[in-house]
């Protein structure tokens, strides 16, 4: 059955590819940004660019939370973890993200306890089992993940846990998209909207992109056909002179999102005035911090952090890659000094980072080598 399905998928992909080609006006260039790192992963894994006409370019956006965390925040986390009473917990993806003096594994080699967990709720269990330690959860992620952290804090408050706190680094996708739209470097024709973030926030928050910037956005699923279908929907809007928010992933994403998830985020967290994003710089109202009423669970208040801003390594061009100005292979250190084993930049760390996705799936075709050598 599987082979038959794959055959049908390939057939459908080719049919979509032809429909996409038919919608493109000759001589016009189309640039679409896929905001989400999960989409980047699918695009490279399945070589989707090979199904697109040459005048359609996919630009990889900043939707990989591990990729956009600035070095200074890693340093702050390690500073907290160095306190003898602290036991830190973190998602596995964060462990190899470099700070200015090394990553979490390096830090553990020097004596800290930073443990990998699957869920923030696993951190709660660790806190209950280690009442003599202060358990600090390194919270990262977009609106997809923030409700989980918020629910965990609510649970900790209900249990009256006194040795659990959160180092909050939650960020929000809408301000990042707006920063990209306002950036002078990049001309985009539309967006492939993130799938799982939209499960939480729904489709309405994207409406300003269509209304104020006149660009279409299609919320897309993660399978290759979802992405091709979304590109077709974007091109159809352009052809018909429309700019709207459409939902290709309605089988999972409700138009209004998950109201409970939004409510718990608002209960526990509030907007920061500004937050630094790796590669994008400081963006107003783009991240969340703990509300005053949950101060007892806020690691930033409980422990001192240096809060020093650390510039990205000079050789690293993650910033340009995250804004979609450079393709991964156009970075000076791509695949040479910077590889998934020894990443310099965050885009090479996470499997959803554009550089790691590109490196792992070897989509380095001859035409692209030629492009790379002339730039």
């Amino acid at each position, binding site marked *: 059955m*599987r082979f038959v399905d794959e055959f049908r998928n390939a057939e459908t992909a080719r049919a979509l590819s032809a429909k996409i080609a038919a919608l493109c006006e000759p001589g016009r260039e189309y640039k679409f940004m896929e905001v989400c*790192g*999960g989409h980047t*992963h*699918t695009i490279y*894994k399945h070589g989707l660019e090979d199904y697109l006409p040459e005048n359609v370019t996919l630009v990889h956006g900043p939707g*990989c*939370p*591990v990729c956009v965390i600035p070095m200074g925040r890693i340093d702050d986390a390690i500073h907290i973890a160095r306190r003898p009473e602290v036991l830190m917990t973190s*998602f*596995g*993806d964060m462990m190899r993200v470099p700070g200015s003096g090394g990553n979490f594994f390096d830090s553990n080699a020097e004596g800290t306890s930073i443990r*990998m*967990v*699957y*869920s*923030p*709720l*696993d951190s709660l*269990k660790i806190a209950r089992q280690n009442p003599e330690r202060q358990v600090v959860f390194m919270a*990262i*992620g977009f609106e*997809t*993940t923030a*409700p*989980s952290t918020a*629910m965990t804090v609510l649970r900790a408050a209900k249990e009256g846990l006194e040795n659990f706190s959160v180092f909050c680094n939650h960020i929000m996708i809408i301000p990042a998209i707006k920063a990209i739209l306002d950036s002078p470097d990049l001309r985009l024709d539309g967006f492939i909207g993130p*799938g*799982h973030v939209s*499960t*939480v926030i729904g489709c309405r928050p994207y409406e300003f992109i269509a209304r104020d910037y006149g660009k279409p956005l299609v919320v897309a699923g*993660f*399978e290759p056909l979802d992405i091709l279908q979304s590109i077709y929907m974007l091109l159809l809007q352009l052809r018909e002179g429309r700019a709207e928010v459409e939902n290709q992933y309605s*089988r*999972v*994403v*409700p138009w209004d999102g*998950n109201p*409970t*998830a939004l409510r*718990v985020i608002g209960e526990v967290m509030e907007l920061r005035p500004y937050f630094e994003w790796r590669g994008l710089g400081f963006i107003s109202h783009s991240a969340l911090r703990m509300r005053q009423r949950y101060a007892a669970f806020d690691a930033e208040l409980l422990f001192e952090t240096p809060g020093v801003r650390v510039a990205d390594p000079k050789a690293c061009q993650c910033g340009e890659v995250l804004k979609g100005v450079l393709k991964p292979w156009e970075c000076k250190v791509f695949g040479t000094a910077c590889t998934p084993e020894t990443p310099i930049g965050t885009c090479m760390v*996470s*499997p*959803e980072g554009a550089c790691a996705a590109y490196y792992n799936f070897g989509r380095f075709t001859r035409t692209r080598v030629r492009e790379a050598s002339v730039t």
Partner: protein
Amino acid sequence: MCLGIPGEVIEILSDRPDLARVDVSGVKRAINIGLLAGERVEPGDWVLIHVGFALSKIDEAEARAATEFLESIGKAYEDEIAALRESRII
């Protein structure tokens, strides 16, 4: 941690109605269903799970298609399942 993974609800824990035991590609673990407040969650339902929380209910056809897709992507899904295997949510 970026993946959303489908799981089938096996049971709602009797002493903790905010937790459900789910089966994700054969790995059976507890997850939190508190974000689905207001929706009925019952054994046999499928949910999309992210870092130990059900984010939305999905239908079985979508769950099976998504699982097949995730199993085809290799390491990222294997890492997620390995992390879930270590999870002991209570």
